[in-house]
């Protein structure tokens, strides 16, 4: 580096800086605007031209979300007027925090069960040479070819017949159907990258298949496992269509559903919706950034092999 002429190095630095700036603007700009909007009052947010940054940081929207308890309304305590033109907390505001917990619950269950199911199947498919191995793999992957929207109706009927409508369990089971094939795909790629001799050694040393999985494959595929956990959690956290149909009451609704309700119900204050959006972004973004290293190495096996 030191020996190279100065001009190309400066040129490279300028180019990198320029493209980095463009990148940040496009990738982070919209979220920054969302965050900025969430920290303004309704009056500030509806100013024309808009305030790029909050004139003063205002946590009122978040405060409202956190403290939006279901209150007892009587003739005396009711608010009058038609909350039509915005600036109002939506009537579902109090559902936001419970739905956050619902999302979290479903996400964690899905992440855990997804891993449990996928690990054993991926091990079997990647490691054991059994009849029907390819058929199993293709069947598992093929279930993802059918678009979600095609599955909604039959799944709704299945879930209804199982008596699971309006339960978090319905969502967990459904999301497993989405995440498991993908996770199996990732884990197979990863398992196949683990030297076969380690498997043979473990078997010779006295491991059955459970032992080989536990003593060799699991400890050695930590990145892929963490990546799978993250993928599953995010998928579950973000999912919308199934949740929309399978859960119709507050007890089981997840965050995207409640938020979409705010968006469609434009009596809601813009700043409130934006704040709700920010709240919905925080957990998955934290998780993604925290596990960044694992996500990349988890993807590696799959991507490089094609």
């Amino acid at each position: 580096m030191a020996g190279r002429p100065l001009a190309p190095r400066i040129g490279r630095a300028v180019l990198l800086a320029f493209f980095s700036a463009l990148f940040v603007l496009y990738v982070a700009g919209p979220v920054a605007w969302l965050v900025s909007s969430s920290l303004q009052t309704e009056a500030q947010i509806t100013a024309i031209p808009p305030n790029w940054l909050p004139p003063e940081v205002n946590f009122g929207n978040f405060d409202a979300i956190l403290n939006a308890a279901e209150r007892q309304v009587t003739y005396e305590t009711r608010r009058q007027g038609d909350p039509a033109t915005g600036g109002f907390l939506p009537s579902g505001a109090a559902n936001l925090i419970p739905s956050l917990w619902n999302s979290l619950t479903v996400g964690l269950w899905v992440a855990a069960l997804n891993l449990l199911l996928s690990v054993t199947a991926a091990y079997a498919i990647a490691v054991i040479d059994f009849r029907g191995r390819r058929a199993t793999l293709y069947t598992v992957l093929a279930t993802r070819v059918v678009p979600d929207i095609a599955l909604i109706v039959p799944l709704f009927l299945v879930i209804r017949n199982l008596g699971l409508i309006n339960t978090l369990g319905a969502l967990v089971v459904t999301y497993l159907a989405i995440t498991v094939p993908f996770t199996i795909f990732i884990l197979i790629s990863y398992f196949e990258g683990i030297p076969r001799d380690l498997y043979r050694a473990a078997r010779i040393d006295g491991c059955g298949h459970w032992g080989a999985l536990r003593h060799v494959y699991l400890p050695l595929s930590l990145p892929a496992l963490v990546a799978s956990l993250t993928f599953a959690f995010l998928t579950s956290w973000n999912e919308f269509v199934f949740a929309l149909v399978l859960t119709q009451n507050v007890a089981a609704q997840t965050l995207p559903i409640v938020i979409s309700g705010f968006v469609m119900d434009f009596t809601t204050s813009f700043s409130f919706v934006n704040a709700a959006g920010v709240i919905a972004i925080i957990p998955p973004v934290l998780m993604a950034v925290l596990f960044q290293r694992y996500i990349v190495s988890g993807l590696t096996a799959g991507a490089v092999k094609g």
Partner: protein
Amino acid sequence: MAAITCEKLTKRYGSVTAVDRLDLAIGHGEFMVLLGPSGCGKTTTLNMIAGLEEITDGTLRFDATDVTWQPPHKREVAMVFQSYALYPNKTVRENIAFPLQLRRTPRAEVERAVADVSEQLEIAHLLDRHPSQLSGGQRQRVALGRAIVRKPSVFLMDEPLSNLDAALRLSMRSLIKHLHQRLQATFVYVTHDQAEAMTLADRIAVMRGGLIQQLDTPDGIYSRPANTFVASFLGSPPINLVEGEIAADGRFARGALRLDLPPGAVAPGRAVTLGLRPEDVAAPAPGLASLEARVTLVSPLGSETLLEVVAPGDVALTLRVPKEWRVRHGDSMTFGIDPARLHLFDRQTEARL
């Protein structure tokens, strides 16, 4: 101790047959080497003995017990791999102790066994390291340690020395030989390296295409190769093979080349391949067939000299002669050959005649 008996052992992958009706009896405490080029089925055979590959057909017995369908962890065999296959997440100590732990050996006993084994293999100072911190030779010692700590009756070795450099290979070779003598266990050793096979084996099974070509002692394999494949696979530099036929006078003929054969060896007119090991030449002497040839290349090896020569009929041969012979490029020389040391094979079947 255990004797291993393979009866018509077969492994097929789809339409490909990797091992074809293999019969092999390995005795108690025997050191058996499976030798052959890659893809010959030797590793598959080893895997079947280990239980790592399901046996498509045939029977496998340890002593009198049919273990054909027994999974590997039930078979009491130990194995050493070319890649060492040490668990990267475990320390050396944990690696060696692992098989014992799986057998629920009491802790004190495990510790004693690990200490014992690491003493023997001179790796006691490495016990708390991870495999990634070890050299190749050290890793293979650890792998050996993990294998012998269980005191199994059958040792399976899958090219254990192939990843080591030449010097290490020699010392590990003698280590393994010592181990075999001390442990008195049955060893099945897979390699493509003929020198390893020759030095280690009680018996060698030379394999090709899923079939055993020859099963014999190292000496038997070397001096009486069953066919041209075995003949050419062993020996360095390889045996010279010359195609020709038996002339009316009972001599081997290839163009202008004529070589005396032991009388009455083969009927005249037969198409044969003649095998001549490079070292089987001497100075011309009575009782020896003589061979005229022109030297085209001289490669001194120190203790000996390698020659490439062209014999009549444009037959190119490689010969090994004592270094005392002063040979120069372009010389024409006469070599003496003991007809009894010539190998004759049928040209069609490639089998020894």
